[in-house]
Structures are given as C-alpha cells and as structure tokens.
C-alpha cells in the first residue's frame, strides 16, 4: 500500500513503531480509550489516511470494537478516509475570514490547483479543503497547509506560498503519499 517505508507487514497497515506509540499514548490515561483520537492520528500519519486496515490496526491495539473506532473517527473532520495529497490545504471560510475575502482566496486556489474543494491534485501534492474558524482571525483571510499557518492572504501571496510547497521546500518533512 505504502511505498518506501520499511517495516510493516502484519497486514493491518500499522508498523510495530506505530503500535508501540499507540500503547504509549494509552498508558497516559486512566482509561486507555482516551488515547483513541491521538492513536488515529498516529495511524493516519503512518498510512496516509484511515484505511479500513489502519482502523482495524488501531482497534486491535486498543482492544476496541472496529465499529466503535470507525464511528468515532467519522465524527471528526481531521481524519481522512481516502488518500490525500502530500499537503492538505485548509482554507478558513468562517466569519472573520469571510469578511476579509476568503471567497476570493478559495476561488484562486481552485483555479490554480484546478481542483474543487475536497479534491486532490493529480500529482497528489495538494488536497484542498475548507475549514471552520481556525482561531487565527487576526490573520484573516488565512489558511493552514499541513500544520503551517498562512495569513493575510492575497492571491499573489497564495501563489508564492504554493510555489514554496510545490518546490518541495516546505518547512516540514513531507507527508507520505499513498
């Protein structure tokens, strides 16, 4: 499923390092299920998205019903159930950003990346999403690319930022593609 990263093979999409990390997270809490949200991120980061196998892996390590794990995961916006691009762009479209022209920014991103919201570029570099208020209204209009915040956006600024990521000069190590 995932090219280029060594150890895997139990057939459920989770390496033993990921499993160990999930167990470590579980040990932090009086009740291990508390680690579920963080554990799902461990799985998502490793596999790239929450594949059924990744979910099964989490369920197995945490000794929870798969139905429960899937149900919980599906509630939250930050989990992906389909493969996503190397960089997930989240454009805030809530009030302060709307008042500051996020519509224009979003439109610009769609045109430039030639994709619609929810889609991934054919080169699997970018996935475009909208987000609710990201608690950075002083920077409106703003977006996140991966974990990085970019604010006071203009179409020109967006272009410059995208070029940086497209050049592979993103400030963070690249997420693995599917």
């Amino acid at each position, binding site marked *: 499923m995932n090219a280029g990263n060594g150890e895997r093979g139990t*057939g459920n999409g989770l390496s033993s390092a990921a499993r160990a990390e999930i167990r470590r997270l579980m040990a932090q809490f009086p009740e291990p299920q508390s680690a579920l949200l963080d554990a799902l991120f461990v799985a998502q980061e490793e596999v790239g998205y929450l594949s*059924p196998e990744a*979910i099964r892996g989490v369920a197995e390590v945490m*000794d*929870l*019903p*798969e*139905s*429960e*794990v*899937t*149900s919980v995961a*599906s*509630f939250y916006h930050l989990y992906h159930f389909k493969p996503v691009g190397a960089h997930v762009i989240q454009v805030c479209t809530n009030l302060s950003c709307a008042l500051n022209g996020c519509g224009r920014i979003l439109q610009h991103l769609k045109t430039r990346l030639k994709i619609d919201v929810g889609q991934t570029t054919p080169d699997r570099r970018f996935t475009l999403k909208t987000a609710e208020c990201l608690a950075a209204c002083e920077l409106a209009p703003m977006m996140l690319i991966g974990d990085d915040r970019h604010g006071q956006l203009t179409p020109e600024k967006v272009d410059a930022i995208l070029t940086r990521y497209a050049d592979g000069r993103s400030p963070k190590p690249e997420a693995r593609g599917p």
Partner: protein
Amino acid sequence: MSEQPTVTLTIDGKALSAHKGTTVYQAATRAGIEIPIFCYHDRMPPLGACRMCLVKVEKQPKLQTSCTLEAADGMVVYTDTPEVKAGQEAILEFLLINHPLDCPICDKGGECPLQDQTYKFGPGRSRFVEAKRDFAKPVSLGPALVLDRERCILCWRCVRFGEIIAGDDALKGFERGFSSEINTPFTLPVQSKFIGNTIAICPVGALTAKSYRFISRPWDNRPVQSTCTLCGVGCAVEFDVRGERITRTRAREHPAVNDIWLCDLGFFGHAFVDHTDRLRRPLMRREGGFVETTWDEALSQIASRLGRTSGPRVAMLGGARLTNEDAYVATRFFRAVVGTPHLDHRVDARPQSPDLAVSWGMGTAIADLALADCVVLIGCDITETYPVLWLRMKQATERGATIIAVTPKALEIQRFVRWQFLHRSGQGGAVMLALADAVRGTAPREAPQGIDRTALAAAAKALGSASRPVVMIGRTALDAPDGWQMLAASGEMCRKTGTELNVMRGKGNAFGATAAGLLPDVAPGGRALADAASELRQAWGSLTTEAGMTAPEILDAAVAGGLDVLFVIGADLANDVPDRERWRAARARLPFLVVQDAFLTETAQMADVVLPALVAAEKDGTVTSIEGRVQRVRAAVSGPGDARGDWAILAALAARLGKTIAYSGWEEIFNEMRGLIPGLGIDERLPVRHPPLGKPSEPERPASAAGGFPLILIPGEALFDRGVLTSRSPTIADLAGEPWAMLHPDDAGTIDAADGEPVVITSARGSVAVRARISPVVLPGHVFLPRGYDAAPVNTLIDVNEPVTFVQVRALAPAAPS
C-alpha cells in the same frame, strides 16, 4: 424493607405521587397521560435526543424533556398547553422534513410510532419545500438486516441497544450532524447475535428484517404466544401467523426469562417450519429405496417387528426436540408398552465423560444472573450456546460484575471478561485446580502452562470476595480430556464460594426430556426408579423399572449386535453422536431402525421406517428451559401433510401393540405428569437435582501428537450453524455461512492458509473441508471446529476411545505470497 421515598407532583392538574427517581414521563404514563416519545426506551437510560416529549414545567422558562426530567415534589407539569403543542409540532415537523413518507411500501406501516405520533401530535401540514436528504436506497447489512437510512429518525435506540444491552456495538452512528447515519463500519454485514431486537425497537421502518420484507401487514397477522425451543433458554415468543405460515417471530415480555429480548436464532430460526423438505407421509424402505406409505401400514410394520423381539432388545434415543408431554408419553411407551429401560436423550454425550454423571441445567435463576457480582465461565461459550443469558450477564457487568473465563477459545465477549484464562487442551483442569486452590487461600499448586499466576490470584480474590457468584460449566469443559478434573475442581470451587454449579448443557427441550424421564436410570421428576415404581405402575400399568443403558452404551450394544430395534425420535444421530464411526458400525448391525422426525435427516435416510412428525411450533403443550422453567408452546400452524404429533404417534403405535395410551390432549398428559413430577406447573421452575459429583479419575494425560497430525482438535459450538433445522432456515443458514474452523496465525502461517480460504482437516479417522478463520483467539497448536455443520461433521474426525483428537490442516489453495 424501607419505604421508597415518594414525591408528589401535579401533571395536567392531576395530583400524582411517584417514587423518587421516577421521571416525569414515567409518572405521566403511569397516570395514563400520553406523552409522545421516540428516543426514550424503558430498558435504557434516558437520552433526551429526539426532544419529542416536551412538557411545560411551572417556573421553568424553557420547555423540558419529560423523559430526562426527574419528578420532584411540588412540580407542576403541563403536557398539553399551546406552547407544548407548538414545541411537539415543531419537533415532528423537523423529523418529517427528511423522512420519505413512503408508508404504503414500508414494513413498519401500521405499527409505526412515527406514523401514529404524526397522526396524533403532528402539524398536519408541512412548510418544507426543499429536497429531502438522499441516501442510496435500502442497504443490506448481512443476511438478517436491511437498513433504510432515509427513514431513520436518529433516535439512537439501535446503537444504544448494541452498546448498553448487547455489548456488541453492532450498529453505530457515523459522520455527524445532518450527515449522521446509522450503519456498520463501511456498510459491512452487521456482526451481532441480537440484531432482531433493533428491528423490534426501531420506531420507524429504518431497520427491517430481510425475512419479513413486504411479507405481511400487522393487521393480517394472527399472533400466537409460544416459547422458543431452539437453544434451551426458553424465551417467550409470539409467532405472527398469516394463513398457514409463520411470518415472523417476535419477543414476548417475560421478566424472569428474556425480559423483552431474543437472539437472532429465535427471531429468524422459525423458517424451517414451512420448508418444502418437511416430511409429509410415512416412508418405508423397499428394495433399497423409500416409498411413501400410510400411517396404517407404517405402524403395522413397526408393531410387527416389535412383536418379534423382546423389550430389552429395543432402545430409544433422542427427545430433545419433543415437548414435555411427548417426552413423557415416550417414556411411558418404552418402559410400559415396549418394556425397555434403554432410553436416553443425551445422544451427544461422550462415553465415560462427566456429561453422563451430572444433571444438566441451571440452579441459578436466569433473572439472578443480572445480580451476580462475579461470573465464572468454565468451558462455556455463553453467547454461542445460550445467547440471551449473556444479556443478563451484560447487565451484571454494568453493575461492576467481574467475568472470569476458563476456555480454550477466547470468548466473543472478551472485552467484558476481566480474566480470560485461555488454556491448552487438557490444561483446563489444572487451571481450575489452581483457581480453586487460590480461592481456598492456598498458593496454586502449579501454575499451568502459559497461565499467569498473578492473574489467577487476582481472579480468585475477586471470586472469593464475591457475594453473589455464579459458576457455569459447559460442554467444552465436560467433554475435555481432563473433563472429570475440571468438573471436580469446579465443584470444589463452588463449595468454597458457597454457590452451586450450573451445568450449561443440553439444547432444545433436553430439560423437559430429563424431567419426563427420558433417561435410563431415573423416573419422571428425577426420582429413583424404585421409589417411583408403584406410582408409575398405577398410572401406566406394568412397566420395567430397571436401570437401562446410557446413550453411548446403547450404541455399544448395537455395535455388539445386542439390539433388534432402535427408535430415534427428534435426533439426528449421524451428526449428533460424538463419534460417527461408531454410529455407522451400530447402524450396520441394527436389524431395524425407526426414525420419527420432521425432516429426512441423515439418520432418517438410513431408517427402515420414517414417521413424519410435527415440530414445536405445530404443537400444544409445554417445554422446560435450562433453568427448569415449564412454559407453554402453542400450535401456530397445523403442520404439513399427514405429519403427526409425537405422542400421538406413540399412542397409535401402542394401540397396534394392544396397549392403550389414551389422552384427550396435552392438558391431560400434563395433569398426569403433575402427579408424578413434584413442582411441575406452568411457569414454575423444576429443581435441577445435582447428584453428588463423582470422584475425579486420574486426569488422562493426553497422548502426544501422532506422526502427521500435529494439531489438537477442539470441537465447539456456534449459535448459527447448519444442522437439520438451521440449514433450512435461510437467514440462519446465511448467518452461519460455510463450515469453518479457527486456527492460530502461527499455525496458519506454517501451512500457508489464508483467512477465508478452504482447508482440509484430517484426523486418523476422516477429514472435513472448511474455510479457515485465522485468529489468536485459539492458542497455537489447536484447531477450533464448530459442531452443527452437517456438511463438515466434527464427529467424522473423532474416535471417542482417544481422549484427544489430533488433526492435520492442509490449505487447499496455498495463500499467495503477500
């Protein structure tokens, strides 16, 4: 007993008093005031999600949900002010905007709370002009269940049933907000043994039964109150009958048994009743084949054969599918008319095993399981054998009860098992001894292989300090190579904790068969034959009161040529006996075999005469449950062709033999039984009599793996299987799927078997083909193979002279390298 504190409140001007802790909804309902609800279900804590049950409470600015509001002293509540009406109308309007209103084609039509509430409380008009929420039309969630998400009103009842009542988390909510939907992960078939209950409690037609889709409307059904006889728990059911067909089974409330629930075997297992394979006329063997014949001729032939032999050269096996009255008349027929003491319903017992030394059944009351604070399951796979009992145990776990399991295969409910001692075959006795020692306060003699000492000590501590422990031993333990030791240690442990041992053994009406005397060594009611002799003679005339042979001994006798006639009633020996080879040998030496059954079973196919019998759903009478409770069954339909009730068949045969067995109906038989069976009464419990437990023989050291057969076979149970009846109930057969066996991943790896792929299991005796399931719920070196699949009979592999069956597993198509 202290008085429960009460509160006084006023609802719609009526002054009411209610126990403290009662909700306003409950108080109102008890006073006959109707408040509409959807999400509230009285077997679950209130949720307050649908917001339908709004009421006005004086001095509270907002409307309140009555299902969540605790009644308080001096509270003044109104359920029908204009404000309340407006609130309820608003909620109904909200619910209906996304409801398809396809009532004319919805199975729930006519018994749909949403339909009813809309009629009573709805606005009668809609302002909704937008497009409704759209889901792919009904989706199948496995063999039993169909989900129509458009109809779902998100009351969460089904989800909470799985979480709170069944503990299987079968259906869940996915996504959120207006995208919320009830489903299984990735719309896979639902994994549950209790899903029928969600169909029953869904307030709309979102969850429907595949077997009932478009079959009937509630007003076309005639309900018949009866008792489920499929596993032994004895759940109260209602068969809905339309014409001569059972359209569906529903749960009837029985507080002491099933409360309001059933398992899916109960819900969907009735379909065999009108299967086209049902026997309609007697069959006689002629020139190697069967020909249909008349009752007259069939009975004459049997009578003439019986006339040519003596009583003790005749034996009878079976009876677990009979009613109490059938079983009783059978006992009378064989002891008094034929004059043989060789009768036994325990056809599946292993020779020499503790199976034959203990009384089957529960001393603990089913309802009390919910109050247990510690449950020990010894070789007892509760959800596969007596599923509804698990629902009571689940309640106990909610109250904090500890479950301890000593089994060779981890239980499906393992999430709720505090200490699971997964043991190797032949090691269960050692685990039980160590546990019994630890309860007694002595350090465990030896820590059995692979078992954690500290866990044992902790489990023993929990058990030792329990004030209401429940201990259950099941077939897997009793049939184990060290079964005697398991039984003895379990008995010892019970003595230490001051509780009784529940023997979780026997299906269908095995308990009724026991009570009615279908045993070689006791009289009806469990009394010693000698003690009951004179009363029996009075009722039946002359009879034999000797002790006869047990089921395994009867087979031995047949093998040795010691029998002339064998009657098999409501049993399929070929599949039921533990060792198929012995049955074959027995049949080969038997001059005459009579089979009385509803289907042409494998056993029936080898018979000389086959008599078509009715099944429980076609009979009036009583049955007895695993806790000894005697309950009514009622004829829902009349049965196919010339099939007859079992006791009537035997009475007719008695007449041919010049003896009179004449009863006007089941009541007369029952009344006669009451004179002979102390404590017999409708809805009363017959005591389970435990004889003093036998001394444990030296644990048999399992032989080591013979060349070429490296794995140990663990025969076990599956709730959904494909036996005589279940293979003819399509939903159950589909739920059961193809025969399967469970292997540990290590062993699967060795033989290159992949999950779901075909494998062949071979022993020195024979082989079966099954699909591999691969999971660490069994230990390496073991193969778990469920009984009850007629296409892969476990008993072809087993030689009962060997305590352990060693097998080899071969992948038919080796797994592709991954």
